């Protein structure tokens, strides 16, 4: 692969740099954590998203713009990317991209913010059958390795997806408090997932990103559509039937609502990703929601 995954993340950030999103994201990410050291590092300009209590009012008074204090992080935070690499993630999003690409971009974005913040990033990935883990490290090189691992593990011919498998692994094996970023398949979350999440959110900060599935009733007739789970080809004449489209739209809306309600009930910030273009604003909104939630 000529371009690295991290380069794509940086490019996505750069595209948004005209808007204040870049620094906004850093501010939002930094505000996620309670703990601050008392060791003052330096001052920097205020960006929306920074905590108001971080503003150095005296310094601001001597300056023409608000300034916030920066502290030396005493504690490294732990970001754990939890990614489904089952064949469900090898399918496409509504925009036609592979779901795994969107997931990798989102994971890379948050991971990059973490690395910039001086935190360490780890990965739990897997399918319904198998779960693999990668250690926590704070370098861009390591982050790139993690993203590459997600990419390599995801294939249409791979194992089926089961989001509960990775969550169970985290429940069983992770003792330290972490920031979990779950990159999930777009499906109804069963009672098992709900139960696992109820236990996880007590111990960790959980961010949930659903990578949306392509809508088979909107894929044009000239393009075939088949399910990755069993290879079943959906007949164009059937999936493009207006009544089917209507019924599926209603079913999809119901699923989105039920999932959102479930995660809201558990106090887990949730975002949906339909394309790689939506990653930066969606992550921004997710971080914002998580900060507000507390």
């Amino acid at each position: 692969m000529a371009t690295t995954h991290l380069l794509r993340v940086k490019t996505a950030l750069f595209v948004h740099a005209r808007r204040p999103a870049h620094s906004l994201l850093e501010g939002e990410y930094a505000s996620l954590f309670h703990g601050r050291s008392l060791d003052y590092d330096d001052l920097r300009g205020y960006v929306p998203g920074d905590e108001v209590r971080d503003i150095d009012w005296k310094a601001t008074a001597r300056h023409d713009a608000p300034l916030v204090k920066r502290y030396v992080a005493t504690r490294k935070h732990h970001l754990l990317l939890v990614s489904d690499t089952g064949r469900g993630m090898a399918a496409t999003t509504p925009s036609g991209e592979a779901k795994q690409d969107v997931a990798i971009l989102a994971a890379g974005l948050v991971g990059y913010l973490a690395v910039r913040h001086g935190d360490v990033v780890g990965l739990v990935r897997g399918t319904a059958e198998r779960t693999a883990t990668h250690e926590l490290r704070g370098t861009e090189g390591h982050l790139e390795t993690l993203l590459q691992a997600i990419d390599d593990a995801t294939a249409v011919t791979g194992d089926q997806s089961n989001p509960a498998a990775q969550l169970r692994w985290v429940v069983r094996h992770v003792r330290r408090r972490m920031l979990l970023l779950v990159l999930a398949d777009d499906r109804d979350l069963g009672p098992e997932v709900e139960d696992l999440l109820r236990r996880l959110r007590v111990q960790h900060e959980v961010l949930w990103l659903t990578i949306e599935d392509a809508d088979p009733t909107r894929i044009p007739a000239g393009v075939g559509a088949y399910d990755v789970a069993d290879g079943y080809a959906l007949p164009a004449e059937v999936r493009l039937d207006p009544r089917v489209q209507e019924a599926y739209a209603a079913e999809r809306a119901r699923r989105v609502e039920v999932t959102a309600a479930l995660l809201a009930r558990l106090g887990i910030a949730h975002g949906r990703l339909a394309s790689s273009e939506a990653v930066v604003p969606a992550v921004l909104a997710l971080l914002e929601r998580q900060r507000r939630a507390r």
Partner: protein
Amino acid sequence: MELRTPEVLAWGLFAAALLAAAVLWRELRGRGATRRPVANSATLTRLPAFRAALRAHRARTAALAGAAALLAGASLLGAARPVDTTVERPQSRSRDIMLCLDVSGSMASYDAELVRTFRRLVADFEGERIGMVIFNGSAATVFPLTDDYDYINEELDGAEQALTGGSVQDAFFAGTFNGWGTSLIGDGLATCVTSFDRADTQRARSVVFATDNEVAGRPLVPLTDAGQLARAKAVRVYGLSPAPDGASRESVEMRDVVEGTGGRFYSMTDRGAIGGIVESVQAQEATVIESASRALRTDSPALPIAAASLAFVGLVVASRRWRS
């Protein structure tokens, strides 16, 4: 059912198989390129609306495929020209009957009855040939010897109408006034006797000769000569005269002539005269000649055409519903 050109069917099936293989190959090859993988489509396929649409789709596809196959099959079958073969052993009874009617005014009603009787008899005939000659001043053939019974019926109908004073009189009697005089009996009988064809084959030939034998003119052939001609040709003449047997010189002459040919003389005063003639004619042993059997092969495209039409309608209906 046989096929006239079975090779068309064979080639057609071969072409259909090639076409099916080509379509299948194209379908399989072009698959991966334009297909998009989708996850969790079970949420779609579980929907009742999807299930209903899928059932309808399958029904339509099956109907279309069935109609197309039927259309192709029926067309191929039709193109191969199915034929019906019937083996026929034509039997013809070699009995020829010539109705020889004197159409001078006095005889018309008797003629009409004779014609009526024969019209009824024709229904039972099988292989017998009937012809009809009328004469007055000259003889005219109404219809030659034939076993086309529909045609005979038609002609006898016309004759009956004309003889009972119907509308086609003039046309019917055309050609009977050309001789020197009227009622030239000898000419009439001679014409009738010479009207038999296939002189070289052995057939039972009869003439039903209805006349009063009252000559009013100069015939080319005297009655006795005509009788000898009949005897020479082995034609039996059955005479039918309005006068009683032996009542007049004419009737005696006629009886002599008629019996000289092996036939019989009947008087019309006798109620059973006509019945008697028919009996005698039928009593003659008909020589049954069996021709060589032959196979008749006729195209019978009705079934394939009907099936193809039905399939075409089905195809149109199914493809129209498809679009909706």
